[in-house]
């Protein structure tokens, strides 16, 4: 429930980051959270495919799931800035994006 204008800025940044992320293939092709034209269902489809292929080869499938509690909230500012710079984002973008951890941009940052 941040100020309306603040939310606008955040959303603008999130949209741009998301677009650039997909366009320049910054993230793993199988990361889907909060990205345009990607969907968790895609991942399910990929998973089902893997499972069925394993079964077709008469193999056994083991699935490991993990859930990180409060993942976005506990990101550390400086580490995040450095990580973003290593990915090739301009310095000003790294600085403002790291400001917005814990918001709409965070799934992308993660």
């Amino acid at each position, binding site marked *: 429930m941040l*100020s309306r204008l603040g939310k606008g800025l955040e959303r603008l940044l999130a949209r741009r980051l998301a677009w650039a992320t997909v366009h320049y293939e910054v993230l793993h092709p199988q990361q889907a959270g909060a990205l345009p034209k990607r969907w968790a269902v895609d991942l399910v489809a990929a998973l089902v495919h893997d499972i069925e292929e394993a079964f077709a080869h008469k193999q056994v499938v083991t699935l490991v799931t993990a859930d990180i509690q409060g993942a976005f909230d506990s990101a550390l500012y400086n580490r995040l800035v450095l990580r973003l710079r290593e990915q090739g984002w301009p310095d000003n973008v790294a*600085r403002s994006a790291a400001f917005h951890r814990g918001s709409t941009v965070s799934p992308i940052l993660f």
Partner: protein
Amino acid sequence: MNVYRRPSYDAALDILLRWSPPERCLVAGDFNAKHYSWQTGRLAGRGDDIAAWAAESGLGLLNTADVPTNPHGNTIDLAFSKIDLASAVVEDHLATSSDHFTLSLTIPNVTLAPTGTPGKVRVTSEEELQRFKELVEAGVCSLPAAATTASELDALAESLVNLLHSAAKAAGRPVRKGTRSAPWWTDECAESAAEYRAVRRIFPMGFNEEVQAARKAFQNVVRRTKRQYWRKLDRQLLGQCSGVQSSSLAQVTQPPPLQIDGVVYETQMDKANALRRSTLERRTAADDIDDPWIPVCPPRQIPFAAGITLAEAEDATTKTGNTSPGADNITIKTLRTVWGIIGEHVCRLYEGCLVVGHHPQAFCEAEVVMITKAGKGDLSTPRA
């Protein structure tokens, strides 16, 4: 400064006219005087002296011209101020024992409480939105022009938020919080009340027959629904002799005190701080690295345009599925109304923020509300 000018007796007025009012002041009272700047028609009761004094002292008239302040159709209860965005509204439904109407004055407290406790206001009706738009238009020229350094961006963001907030406050109605309508109040009552208000609007002076008939009709509806409500409740209570169930009187859920590691937090501020400590600060600054600006050699530079078009800013700000108001209580709808006025300022603010990599202080205020989830037993634990 409260003023009363007795008709044809000028001692008090003379004192007032010799006085030069300070910056933040409000002069209001019954002047028993007419001037064309507040009432069309002839001059009366030294209206020209008062108008000249106000103009010389830089005082603005808060009244809307030709809106009467007494049942004879005269505008003689006046309010003047130098404070931007101060406003006066004649509230003819607030009947006091006076033979004049109630003049309701609103003064924005921009410098003393910049973004402090934002009182909840609602700007919804056509007239309110129109007034809101006018006020924003009047204030937009005072927004700072510079938007390149972090502190300039902070100042611009704060002025924008303050402008919208004080305009909304002056144009809108306060939201009644913590109160609920009487249990017997029905849609029929609301409709009848609206009808009565409509009749009152047609005859603003009025204590005529039609107004009286409308009032009577409204009172009858209220009486009847009240009677029905209590009778029904009586019957229900008599019906269930085995014990009274209080289910019909729904209770608003109050967030319980918060409990972390055996310490109980009760006030909102304590709760917010404790929540942050226990859920967010599980890692300390010691876990962070010292300098994120060491040289790096990324595989490639990701291009990122610095400019922001007006359309992009508008899209991000006013077009979204989420219509809940922010902490500043500005809803999407109110923001859309004034986008034509503030759009370019918001755009250059965003652009500056992006170029510098800065997030303005004024945007950092947030509100935490407890939302109960089904199946979470103990509401006083932080992760519930």
